Protein backbone atom coordinates (compact mmCIF):
# COMPACT_ATOMS: atom_id res chain seq x y z
CA UNK A 1 0.00 0.00 0.00
CA UNK A 2 2.84 2.34 0.95
CA UNK A 3 4.67 1.57 -2.29
CA UNK A 4 1.49 2.07 -4.30
CA UNK A 5 1.13 5.53 -2.76
CA UNK A 6 4.75 6.28 -3.73
CA UNK A 7 4.12 5.19 -7.32
CA UNK A 8 1.01 7.37 -7.53
CA UNK A 9 3.04 10.30 -6.17
CA UNK A 10 5.77 9.70 -8.74
CA UNK A 11 3.22 9.57 -11.56
CA UNK A 12 1.74 12.86 -10.35
CA UNK A 13 5.23 14.40 -10.24
CA UNK A 14 5.85 13.18 -13.81
CA UNK A 15 2.62 14.81 -14.99
CA UNK A 16 3.52 18.05 -13.24
CA UNK A 17 6.98 18.00 -14.85
CA UNK A 18 5.55 17.30 -18.30
CA UNK A 19 3.03 20.13 -17.84
CA UNK A 20 5.74 22.52 -16.67
CA UNK A 21 8.01 21.52 -19.55
CA UNK A 22 5.24 22.02 -22.10
CA UNK A 23 4.39 25.42 -20.62
CA UNK A 24 8.00 26.61 -20.67
CA UNK A 25 8.50 25.26 -24.19
CA UNK A 26 5.41 27.03 -25.52
CA UNK A 27 6.35 30.33 -23.85
CA UNK A 28 9.85 30.06 -25.35
CA UNK A 29 8.27 29.78 -28.81
CA UNK A 30 6.65 33.21 -28.58
CA UNK A 31 6.59 34.96 -31.95
CA UNK A 32 9.52 37.31 -32.24
CA UNK A 33 8.15 40.47 -33.80
CA UNK A 34 11.06 42.71 -34.74
CA UNK A 35 9.52 45.98 -33.62
CA UNK A 36 12.68 47.95 -34.19
CA UNK A 37 12.85 46.81 -37.80
CA UNK A 38 9.18 47.58 -38.48
CA UNK A 39 9.57 51.06 -36.97
CA UNK A 40 12.60 51.65 -39.17
CA UNK A 41 10.67 50.36 -42.18
CA UNK A 42 7.70 52.67 -41.50
CA UNK A 43 9.96 55.68 -40.97
CA UNK A 44 11.95 55.05 -44.15
CA UNK A 45 8.83 54.36 -46.18
CA UNK A 46 7.31 57.70 -45.20
CA UNK A 47 10.55 59.61 -45.70
CA UNK A 48 11.24 58.05 -49.11
CA UNK A 49 7.72 58.71 -50.36
CA UNK A 50 7.78 62.35 -49.23
CA UNK A 51 11.14 63.03 -50.88
CA UNK A 52 10.34 61.45 -54.24
CA UNK A 53 10.10 63.71 -57.26
CA UNK A 54 6.73 63.78 -58.97
CA UNK A 55 8.01 64.91 -62.36
CA UNK A 56 6.03 68.16 -62.09
CA UNK A 57 7.29 71.64 -61.36
CA UNK A 58 6.49 73.83 -58.32
CA UNK A 59 4.25 73.71 -56.35
CA UNK A 60 4.20 69.91 -56.83
CA UNK A 61 7.88 69.08 -57.29
CA UNK A 62 8.04 66.36 -54.65
CA UNK A 63 5.31 64.16 -53.15
CA UNK A 64 5.65 66.23 -49.98
CA UNK A 65 4.97 69.45 -51.97
CA UNK A 66 2.05 67.75 -53.70
CA UNK A 67 0.49 66.72 -50.37
CA UNK A 68 0.85 70.26 -49.01
CA UNK A 69 -0.69 71.65 -52.19
CA UNK A 70 -3.57 69.14 -52.02
CA UNK A 71 -4.24 70.04 -48.40
CA UNK A 72 -3.87 73.81 -48.45
CA UNK A 73 -4.70 74.79 -52.07
CA UNK A 74 -6.47 71.78 -53.62
CA UNK A 75 -7.71 73.75 -56.63
CA UNK A 76 -4.22 74.78 -57.74
CA UNK A 77 -3.04 73.01 -60.87
CA UNK A 78 0.10 71.03 -61.58
CA UNK A 79 0.58 69.91 -65.16
CA UNK A 80 -3.06 70.68 -65.94
CA UNK A 81 -4.47 68.63 -63.07
CA UNK A 82 -5.86 69.76 -59.73
CA UNK A 83 -3.44 69.20 -56.85
CA UNK A 84 -6.11 67.24 -54.96
CA UNK A 85 -6.76 64.90 -57.91
CA UNK A 86 -3.08 64.42 -58.61
CA UNK A 87 -2.40 63.66 -54.96
CA UNK A 88 -5.31 61.18 -54.75
CA UNK A 89 -3.90 59.36 -57.71
CA UNK A 90 -0.17 59.61 -57.10
CA UNK A 91 0.27 59.06 -53.35
CA UNK A 92 -1.47 55.66 -53.11
CA UNK A 93 0.14 54.61 -56.37
CA UNK A 94 3.67 55.38 -55.14
CA UNK A 95 3.12 53.71 -51.77
CA UNK A 96 1.64 50.57 -53.35
CA UNK A 97 4.63 50.33 -55.68
CA UNK A 98 7.10 50.18 -52.84
CA UNK A 99 5.40 48.75 -49.72
CA UNK A 100 6.01 45.10 -48.84
CA UNK A 101 3.06 42.93 -49.94
CA UNK A 102 2.38 41.70 -46.40
CA UNK A 103 1.80 45.25 -45.12
CA UNK A 104 -1.25 47.46 -45.30
CA UNK A 105 -0.95 51.23 -44.84
CA UNK A 106 -2.82 54.31 -43.77
CA UNK A 107 -1.51 57.80 -44.50
CA UNK A 108 -3.09 60.73 -42.66
CA UNK A 109 -2.33 64.39 -43.37
CA UNK A 110 -3.75 66.79 -40.81
CA UNK A 111 -3.02 70.27 -39.48
CA UNK A 112 -1.12 70.76 -36.22
CA UNK A 113 -3.26 70.18 -33.09
CA UNK A 114 -5.98 68.52 -35.15
CA UNK A 115 -7.20 66.68 -32.04
CA UNK A 116 -8.01 70.06 -30.41
CA UNK A 117 -9.02 72.37 -33.24
CA UNK A 118 -10.05 69.87 -35.89
CA UNK A 119 -9.72 70.74 -39.58
CA UNK A 120 -9.44 69.14 -42.95
CA UNK A 121 -7.72 65.77 -43.17
CA UNK A 122 -6.38 63.89 -46.15
CA UNK A 123 -6.59 60.14 -45.72
CA UNK A 124 -5.13 57.49 -47.99
CA UNK A 125 -5.14 53.73 -47.52
CA UNK A 126 -6.98 51.32 -45.28
CA UNK A 127 -8.61 53.10 -42.33
CA UNK A 128 -9.31 49.84 -40.50
CA UNK A 129 -5.67 49.48 -39.47
CA UNK A 130 -5.78 52.60 -37.29
CA UNK A 131 -7.08 50.44 -34.44
CA UNK A 132 -5.00 47.40 -35.33
CA UNK A 133 -3.04 45.78 -32.49
CA UNK A 134 0.19 45.18 -34.41
CA UNK A 135 0.83 48.49 -36.09
CA UNK A 136 3.82 50.77 -36.49
CA UNK A 137 3.70 54.49 -37.00
CA UNK A 138 6.00 57.12 -38.49
CA UNK A 139 5.45 60.85 -38.23
CA UNK A 140 6.80 63.78 -40.18
CA UNK A 141 6.01 67.46 -39.89
CA UNK A 142 5.86 69.63 -43.00
CA UNK A 143 6.06 73.38 -42.74
CA UNK A 144 3.23 74.88 -44.77
CA UNK A 145 1.93 78.40 -45.18
CA UNK A 146 -0.20 79.47 -42.17
CA UNK A 147 -0.23 76.00 -40.63
CA UNK A 148 2.12 73.08 -40.20
CA UNK A 149 0.99 69.71 -41.40
CA UNK A 150 1.48 66.45 -39.58
CA UNK A 151 1.89 63.45 -41.81
CA UNK A 152 1.31 60.09 -40.15
CA UNK A 153 2.00 56.80 -41.80
CA UNK A 154 0.66 53.69 -40.10
CA UNK A 155 1.57 50.24 -41.34
CA UNK A 156 0.17 46.94 -40.15
CA UNK A 157 0.50 43.32 -41.16
CA UNK A 158 -2.32 42.10 -43.40
Amino acid sequence: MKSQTSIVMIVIVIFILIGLGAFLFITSLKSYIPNEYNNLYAHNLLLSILRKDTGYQAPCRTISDLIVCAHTTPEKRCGGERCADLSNQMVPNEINKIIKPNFDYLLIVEPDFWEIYGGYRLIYGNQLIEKSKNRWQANEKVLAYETNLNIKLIIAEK
Partner: protein
Amino acid sequence: MRIGQAHLMEYVLLTFFAVLILLLIAFFLTGWQITGAESQKQELVLQKSLFVLKSFSNSPYINRRGFKEGSMFEDSKLTVLKCEDLQNLFGKSWWAEIYIPGYTEICTEENYPNCGYWKFCEKESESIIYEIPVNIYRKVSGNVDIGILRVGVKI
Protein backbone atom coordinates in the same frame (compact mmCIF):
# COMPACT_ATOMS: atom_id res chain seq x y z
CA MET B 1 8.10 -15.79 -1.25
CA ARG B 2 5.32 -14.09 -3.21
CA ILE B 3 5.32 -11.12 -0.82
CA GLY B 4 9.10 -10.80 -1.32
CA GLN B 5 8.69 -10.84 -5.11
CA ALA B 6 5.94 -8.22 -4.91
CA HIS B 7 8.22 -5.96 -2.82
CA LEU B 8 11.01 -6.49 -5.31
CA MET B 9 8.69 -5.52 -8.20
CA GLU B 10 7.65 -2.37 -6.33
CA TYR B 11 11.30 -1.34 -5.93
CA VAL B 12 12.00 -2.08 -9.59
CA LEU B 13 9.03 0.09 -10.59
CA LEU B 14 10.09 2.85 -8.21
CA THR B 15 13.61 2.83 -9.63
CA PHE B 16 12.20 2.83 -13.17
CA PHE B 17 10.06 5.90 -12.46
CA ALA B 18 12.91 7.68 -10.70
CA VAL B 19 15.19 7.10 -13.72
CA LEU B 20 12.37 8.23 -16.02
CA ILE B 21 12.02 11.50 -14.09
CA LEU B 22 15.77 12.09 -14.24
CA LEU B 23 15.79 11.43 -18.00
CA LEU B 24 12.84 13.78 -18.50
CA ILE B 25 14.58 16.53 -16.57
CA ALA B 26 17.78 15.99 -18.59
CA PHE B 27 15.89 16.12 -21.91
CA PHE B 28 13.96 19.16 -20.85
CA LEU B 29 17.06 21.07 -19.76
CA THR B 30 18.90 20.17 -22.98
CA GLY B 31 15.93 21.31 -25.08
CA TRP B 32 15.67 24.48 -23.04
CA GLN B 33 19.35 25.26 -23.61
CA ILE B 34 19.08 24.62 -27.36
CA THR B 35 15.98 26.82 -27.70
CA GLY B 36 17.67 29.59 -25.73
CA ALA B 37 20.81 29.42 -27.84
CA GLU B 38 18.76 29.47 -31.07
CA SER B 39 16.77 32.54 -30.05
CA GLN B 40 19.96 34.29 -28.94
CA LYS B 41 21.55 33.54 -32.30
CA GLN B 42 18.47 34.83 -34.11
CA GLU B 43 18.55 38.01 -32.08
CA LEU B 44 22.25 38.55 -32.82
CA VAL B 45 21.67 38.11 -36.55
CA LEU B 46 18.73 40.52 -36.37
CA GLN B 47 20.86 43.05 -34.51
CA LYS B 48 23.60 42.74 -37.10
CA SER B 49 21.08 43.15 -39.94
CA LEU B 50 19.70 46.28 -38.32
CA PHE B 51 23.21 47.56 -37.74
CA VAL B 52 24.10 47.12 -41.41
CA LEU B 53 20.79 48.68 -42.53
CA LYS B 54 21.30 51.71 -40.29
CA SER B 55 24.98 52.02 -41.21
CA PHE B 56 24.07 52.05 -44.89
CA SER B 57 21.30 54.59 -44.30
CA ASN B 58 23.57 57.00 -42.47
CA SER B 59 26.91 56.47 -44.15
CA PRO B 60 28.37 59.67 -45.62
CA TYR B 61 30.19 57.53 -48.21
CA ILE B 62 26.87 56.70 -49.86
CA ASN B 63 24.54 59.53 -48.91
CA ARG B 64 24.12 62.81 -50.67
CA ARG B 65 25.68 65.69 -48.80
CA GLY B 66 23.26 67.74 -46.70
CA PHE B 67 20.78 65.01 -45.83
CA LYS B 68 21.28 64.51 -42.11
CA GLU B 69 18.41 62.02 -41.83
CA GLY B 70 20.21 59.75 -44.29
CA SER B 71 18.68 57.24 -46.72
CA MET B 72 19.36 59.55 -49.67
CA PHE B 73 21.88 57.55 -51.66
CA GLU B 74 23.76 59.17 -54.50
CA ASP B 75 23.86 56.92 -57.56
CA SER B 76 27.38 57.96 -58.58
CA LYS B 77 28.76 57.04 -55.15
CA LEU B 78 26.99 53.69 -55.24
CA THR B 79 28.46 52.95 -58.65
CA VAL B 80 32.09 53.44 -57.63
CA LEU B 81 31.94 51.72 -54.23
CA LYS B 82 33.22 48.17 -53.89
CA CYS B 83 32.34 45.41 -51.45
CA GLU B 84 35.75 45.64 -49.76
CA ASP B 85 35.33 49.38 -49.09
CA LEU B 86 32.07 48.74 -47.28
CA GLN B 87 33.36 45.66 -45.47
CA ASN B 88 36.03 47.86 -43.96
CA LEU B 89 33.24 50.04 -42.57
CA PHE B 90 30.50 47.59 -41.58
CA GLY B 91 32.37 44.34 -40.97
CA LYS B 92 31.99 41.04 -42.81
CA SER B 93 29.44 38.24 -43.42
CA TRP B 94 26.75 40.40 -45.01
CA TRP B 95 25.66 41.31 -48.51
CA ALA B 96 23.51 44.10 -49.81
CA GLU B 97 21.64 45.19 -52.89
CA ILE B 98 20.03 48.49 -53.71
CA TYR B 99 17.62 48.80 -56.60
CA ILE B 100 15.03 51.03 -58.12
CA PRO B 101 11.97 48.89 -58.92
CA GLY B 102 11.91 48.12 -62.63
CA TYR B 103 15.68 48.16 -63.10
CA THR B 104 17.58 44.89 -63.44
CA GLU B 105 20.86 45.96 -65.00
CA ILE B 106 23.71 46.21 -62.51
CA CYS B 107 25.36 49.62 -62.52
CA THR B 108 28.93 49.82 -63.73
CA GLU B 109 31.04 52.75 -64.84
CA GLU B 110 30.19 51.80 -68.44
CA ASN B 111 26.39 51.86 -68.27
CA TYR B 112 25.99 54.64 -65.65
CA PRO B 113 23.55 56.48 -65.38
CA ASN B 114 21.17 54.25 -67.40
CA CYS B 115 20.91 51.67 -64.66
CA GLY B 116 19.35 51.29 -61.22
CA TYR B 117 20.73 48.19 -59.51
CA TRP B 118 23.74 48.00 -57.22
CA LYS B 119 25.14 44.88 -55.56
CA PHE B 120 27.71 44.70 -52.79
CA CYS B 121 29.42 41.48 -51.72
CA GLU B 122 28.50 37.91 -52.64
CA LYS B 123 24.92 36.90 -51.91
CA GLU B 124 24.66 34.04 -49.41
CA SER B 125 21.87 31.53 -49.86
CA GLU B 126 21.43 31.01 -46.12
CA SER B 127 20.92 34.46 -44.74
CA ILE B 128 18.36 36.56 -42.93
CA ILE B 129 17.19 39.35 -45.18
CA TYR B 130 15.71 42.71 -44.28
CA GLU B 131 14.78 45.55 -46.58
CA ILE B 132 13.82 49.20 -46.24
CA PRO B 133 12.80 51.85 -48.75
CA VAL B 134 15.43 54.49 -49.49
CA ASN B 135 15.84 57.40 -51.88
CA ILE B 136 18.24 57.36 -54.79
CA TYR B 137 19.51 60.72 -55.95
CA ARG B 138 20.19 60.68 -59.69
CA LYS B 139 23.17 62.97 -59.96
CA VAL B 140 22.95 63.52 -63.72
CA SER B 141 19.23 64.35 -63.91
CA GLY B 142 18.94 65.77 -60.37
CA ASN B 143 15.82 63.64 -59.73
CA VAL B 144 15.05 61.74 -56.56
CA ASP B 145 13.72 58.19 -56.97
CA ILE B 146 12.61 55.54 -54.53
CA GLY B 147 14.66 52.40 -54.18
CA ILE B 148 14.90 49.38 -51.93
CA LEU B 149 17.89 48.62 -49.75
CA ARG B 150 18.06 44.89 -49.06
CA VAL B 151 20.57 43.53 -46.59
CA GLY B 152 21.31 39.89 -45.90
CA VAL B 153 23.30 38.59 -42.95
CA LYS B 154 24.74 35.10 -43.02
CA ILE B 155 23.10 32.75 -40.51
